[in-house]
């Protein structure tokens, strides 16, 4: 069983109707969970305070967010990554972002107090946000604030990022911290945003070998993805022996996601969640904090994250999607949604070039493991 953290205020983190990071995804997800017959009683966490945000972000940046929040435009905004198509300015954005950070941080607190061992924060996962700027839909880095608090508590923290995109913000914030292991699986940054996450990014100073990146070929499918995961993640955790696992569970590596090119199915996500829980049981006495993240196809994220919820709650996973839910969200779901929680098998037409892609992924993993071993010995 996991503790669930959520607040209606999360819907306030809204960049407008044209933006892919829409809070409607959350409403749809919660409604699906409820319609499947599971009443949720989420914990209402407080928003993060300004001081808590400042454990990660620069004062000048936070001051800029606050100033824009009060209205008016500023020419310097774009230097802080704000007012761009990715990170538009909206009234109330400072507090909206602090609600999300507060939830993730509260999850960390529950783990540190020993009140819970497994927490699901239905929001957050803003892994691109940097010390001094917003990036890739992410204003404040909730993951980093929570990780910082756990490091101050004396814990070694393993961060695992299965979002389509490289977890660049979290990586760079802890690049030289020997208390934090960051592992990111993502579509290669040769083309995709943010352009980083190469196998050569291994951490700095005493933290060399604690930054682990698994960049995968565009159109990588479930089998190759899971193979790469199995070749690296268990060994990394075994070696680092963390107190807690923080998981950014973005759903945009799904094949139907409009922003990316990885080709995971719902079945692969379910297998991943199972593996992650097993790893937490083996290495962190079960202690794990999950957040959401990217995922931009409405009918996909609702299904994938419902599977995440059911898995973390140790609930059975049904096959049928409820008709009432399909009717209520018809407009958002579009014609692509089927009648099952899982993708059909096969989920999409065969992709040419599979053998070559898998070989290249295998090569990348072999080279990564090769360079990590010398630091892990």
């Amino acid at each position: 069983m996991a503790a669930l953290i959520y607040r209606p205020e999360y819907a306030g983190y809204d960049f407008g109707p044209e933006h892919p990071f829409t809070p409607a995804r959350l409403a749809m997800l919660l409604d699906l969970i409820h319609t499947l017959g599971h009443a949720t009683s989420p914990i209402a966490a407080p928003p993060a305070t300004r001081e808590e945000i400042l454990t990660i972000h620069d004062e000048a940046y936070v001051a800029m967010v606050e100033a824009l929040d009060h209205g008016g435009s500023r020419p310097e905004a774009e230097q802080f990554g704000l007012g761009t198509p990715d990170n538009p300015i909206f009234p109330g954005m400072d507090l909206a972002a602090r609600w999300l950070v507060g939830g993730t941080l509260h999850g960390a607190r529950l783990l540190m107090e020993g009140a819970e061992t497994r927490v699901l924060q239905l929001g957050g996962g803003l892994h691109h946000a940097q010390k001094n700027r917003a990036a890739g839909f992410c204003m404040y880095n909730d993951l980093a604030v929570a990780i910082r608090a756990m490091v101050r508590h004396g814990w070694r923290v393993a961060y695992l990022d299965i979002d389509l995109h490289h977890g660049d913000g979290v990586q760079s914030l802890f690049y030289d911290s020997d208390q934090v292991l960051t592992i990111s699986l993502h579509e290669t940054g040769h083309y995709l945003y943010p352009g980083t996450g190469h196998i050569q990014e291994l951490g700095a100073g005493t933290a060399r070998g604690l930054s682990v990146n698994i960049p995968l070929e565009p159109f990588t499918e479930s089998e190759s993805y899971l193979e790469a995961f199995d070749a690296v993640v268990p060994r990394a955790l075994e070696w680092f022996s963390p107190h807690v696992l923080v998981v950014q569970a973005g759903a945009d590596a799904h094949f139907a996601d409009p922003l990316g090119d990885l080709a995971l199915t719902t079945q692969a996500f379910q297998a991943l969640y199972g593996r992650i829980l097993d790893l937490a049981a083996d290495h962190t006495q079960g202690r794990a904090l999950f957040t959401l993240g990217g995922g931009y196809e409405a009918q996909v994220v609702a299904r994938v994250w419902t599977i995440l919820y059911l898995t973390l709650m140790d609930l059975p996973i049904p096959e049928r999607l409820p008709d009432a839910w399909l009717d209520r969200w018809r407009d958002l779901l579009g014609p692509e949604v089927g009648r099952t929680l899982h993708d059909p098998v096969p989920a999409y037409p065969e992709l040419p070039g599979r053998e070559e892609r898998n070989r290249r992924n295998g090569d990348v993993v072999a080279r990564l493991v090769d360079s990590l071993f010398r630091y892990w010995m």
Partner: protein
Amino acid sequence: MLVKEMMRRPVTVVSAEATIGEAYQLLQDRGFRHLPVVDRGRLVGVLTDRDLRLATSSLCQHPRPAGDPVSAVMSSPPLTADPLDPVEDAARIMREHKIGCLPVVDGMELVGILTGMDLLDALMILTGVTKPSSRLEVALADRPGELARLTAFLAERHVNIHSILTYPSPEAVRTVLRVDSNQIRPLADELRQAEFEVLWPIQKPWQH
């Protein structure tokens, strides 16, 4: 981009009368590979770690002792750059002569040094990879106004371009952009609708 924007300064130099032992220590301590050599304030050569290693190697017939002067093993006369040279010109000179650095001279004064590493920095800045960005590749017809049509298209959508590079290929002018956006798939779809040939991101096989 000019040499003066990418060069390092101030420059650490060594005197022509210094011994190669002293120069070796300096290279070791500072982590350098190149030392401009000066004689009474005037640039007279460049000493590289390779010059030193070759001259003193035990594999040489007559390895030089540590007490020999720098002037005996340095490369001279040195090739130099002007601070106002474009970096691509400096790159061409270094490539043609297969050398690792150019001392930068303004009039008679040594004002900086440009190394191969600085050119890699220049390449990263020019290609836009130093900032979070996505890579968009478009094939443009080789005629006036095509690039303008592309950039106007991006400007209308308020997409900031970190860098833009074009190079000729037999069929078209390949144009690589690094843009400050996480949303290049939808952008690529719109570009295709506007009849641009987008090379990356490619369409998904199941996309309608």
